[in-house]
């Protein structure tokens, strides 16, 4: 056992062979940020093309590759790995465990991720171009009419799915078996709870995604006809399978964000989280409902009325547990001694904007109304309000909140607040007008548009450039903090913070909780 108390190894091998949850968490976070920049660059190309009507910069084929890769890279490369990184860093420290339950598998689940995205990005340079069928890769666009690079796309989905499944198995095994004595399930911090439930969702639906792309692979190369009417298959089947994965997927993205917000708001409201138990039950209820609402993404395929009604009511039902969460956060702040440091600003931005995204989601859930909204920019506005202002804002909040604990240096509060306000304003300038052009009939994934949408699109593009620039400021803030931030050694960075992670030294030592703490 002699090697128990050593520090990190030197050089590159530290990162290649590390089994330390903090190292792996750090790698996940940096990897996801680089993917965030890559996906953001694709978004900038999209918005530059849409700055004015008519074809400006890129040809339509390349535009389609950009919308596809932007979606894939942001969902699978930026948002999901960033929360896995956060889970790696924080879950062992929050439950008083020395490391993850399966440290070697942890190393592997990270290191297969960069090759997967290298393969995906390399399709850009292949003959016939990158995948161009949208991140939802509906058959037959992704089978009969797909570019040859689709096979590489399928392989990269397999690999990153494997990475997600291994990561979630690790998280569940850690949470179920490695909690400190006295840490009962109902004493776990909410971030741990939301991740536990998210991990179960991942284990259940990532294999379904793998199944869908495997069927595509067989249709393309091995003469089966799962999605081809020629051999008795059905393209609509693809949509059912995809969204059976895809709807739980959106909760996989947002539940850890809920967890982050539930950690941060009590700290800066200086009050315990209101309705802890109901938060746990609401999370579980959302996870359950996510499995029975998938067809609300496909109201227009020609379902029987009974089906439309079932999926409509089931979808509306999700507003109840989500409302419980939003009201609990608001009630936590009620009469709290609130201060507005950067993490809190991002959480409040989250609260306001995510709620707007939730309301537009409710509008989209109404089957008869959805026939107008379907595949329009209204949908684009809706899911960016929940994905960006939901997941990305909460991720930014998490970084500012825990960065002092990670590196022992304090970020510059003025710079952090500047990042927030530019993000907040830029985000709204980008996506709020998209509601209007969507309702007026502008379809999504389109490189050119009718003249009446020109003003709002230019506004949207300007907002996108502002929002994109604010993320460079984010990068600067993080690097400046790590390199030259004011050193801090207070165990509790924030006066109102609660939880085991604030009981360890700052910066967090390489090994923490080698002897488990006693939780009362």
């Amino acid at each position, binding site marked *: 056992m002699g090697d128990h108390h050593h520090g990190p190894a030197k050089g590159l091998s530290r990162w290649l062979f590390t089994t330390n949850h903090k190292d792996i968490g750090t790698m996940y976070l940096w990897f996801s940020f680089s993917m965030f920049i890559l996906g953001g660059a694709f978004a900038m190309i999209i918005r530059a093309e849409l700055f004015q009507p008519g074809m400006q910069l890129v040809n339509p084929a390349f535009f389609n590759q950009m919308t596809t890769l932007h979606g894939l890279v942001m969902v699978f490369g930026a948002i999901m790995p960033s929360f896995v990184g956060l889970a790696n860093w924080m879950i062992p420290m929050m439950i008083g465990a020395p490391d993850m*339950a*399966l440290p070697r598998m942890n190393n592997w689940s990270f290191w297969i991720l960069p090759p997967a995205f290298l393969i995906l990005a390399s399709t850009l340079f292949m003959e016939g171009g990158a995948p161009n069928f949208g991140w939802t890769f509906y058959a037959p666009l992704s089978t*009969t009419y797909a570019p040859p690079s689709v096979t590489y796309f399928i392989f990269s989905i397999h690999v990153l799915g494997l990475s997600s*499944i291994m990561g*979630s*198995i690790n998280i*569940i*095994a850690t949470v*179920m*078996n490695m909690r400190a004595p006295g840490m009962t399930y109902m004493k776990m911090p909410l971030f741990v709870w939301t991740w536990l439930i998210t991990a179960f969702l991942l*284990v*259940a*639906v*990532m*294999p*379904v995604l*793998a*199944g*869908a792309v495997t*069927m595509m692979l067989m249709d393309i190369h091995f*003469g089966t006809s*799962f999605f081809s*009417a*020629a*051999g*008795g298959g*059905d393209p*609509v*089947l693809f949509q*059912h*399978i995809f969204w*059976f994965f895809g709807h739980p997927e959106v909760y996989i993205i947002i539940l850890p964000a809920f967890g982050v917000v539930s950690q941060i708001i009590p700290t800066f409201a200086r009050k315990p989280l209101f309705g802890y138990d109901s938060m746990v039950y609401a999370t579980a209820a959302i996870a359950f409902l996510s499995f029975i609402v998938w067809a609300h993404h496909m109201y227009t395929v*020609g*379902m*029987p009325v009974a089906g439309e009604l079932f999926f409509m009511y089931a979808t509306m039902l999700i507003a109840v547990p989500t409302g419980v969460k939003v009201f609990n956060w608001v009630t936590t702040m009620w009469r709290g001694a609130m201060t507005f440091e950067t993490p809190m600003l991002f959480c409040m931005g989250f609260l306001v904007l995510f709620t707007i995204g939730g309301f537009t989601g409710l509008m989209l859930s109404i089957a008869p109304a959805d026939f107008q909204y379907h595949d329009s920019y209204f949908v684009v506005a809706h899911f960016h309000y929940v994905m960006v202002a939901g997941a990305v804002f909460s991720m930014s909040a998490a970084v500012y909140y825990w960065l002092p604990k990670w590196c022992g240096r304090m970020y510059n509060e003025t710079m952090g607040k500047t990042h927030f306000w530019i993000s907040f304003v830029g985000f709204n300038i980008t996506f709020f007008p998209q509601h209007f052009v969507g309702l007026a009939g502008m379809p999504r994934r389109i490189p050119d548009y009718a003249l009446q949408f020109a003003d709002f699109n230019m506004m949207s593009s300007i907002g996108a450039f502002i929002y994109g620039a604010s993320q460079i400021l984010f990068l600067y803030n993080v690097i400046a903090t790590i390199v030259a931030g004011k050193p801090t050694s207070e165990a509790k960075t924030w006066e109102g913070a609660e939880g085991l992670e604030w009981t360890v030294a700052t910066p967090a030592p390489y090994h923490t909780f080698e002897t488990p703490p006693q939780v009362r």
Partner: protein
Amino acid sequence: MLRVSSNPVVDTVVKLASTAVIMFAFVFVVMVPLYNVLCDALGINGKTSGEAYTSVQAGVDESRTVTIQFVATNNEGMPWDFGPSVTMMKVHPGASNDTVFHARNPLPRAMVAQAIPSVSPSRAAAYFHKTECFCFNQQPLDGDSSAEMPLQFIIDRDLPSDIHTITLSYTIFDVTDMVGGSIAAR
């Protein structure tokens, strides 16, 4: 609760990994057949029954006339000339009707085709009974030859009264490669 290992971590991992494998298999083993069963049972997607209908003598409802439109489409890369002999018929529910589709294989080699029907509005699919249809079987055709393919159908007397026009669409697919061996033996 079932325990597969005395080590609790191994126990959790084995259970979760099995769940993942089961979910992967679930897509192939359950979702695909379930989808087909549901489509059949609910009569959605305009899929008509793939088997011949045995008619029940219920009399012809001469008070009602339904327009039947025929549409023929070639799937991508299918070179046959394929189409209905008449594009439209007016029929009475309960009566037996005959029509033919003609097909010509312009290539010098023998081919096999499969026609896939679809009925619109899809609600009408359950009331469109085919007593004989070329779509029930694969259709072989020698090179540079043509054939008349019969269709015999009855519109159910219970067809909802708001449906006045039914479109029957056939898409013809080249399945020569799929039946490969058997055509050579013929």
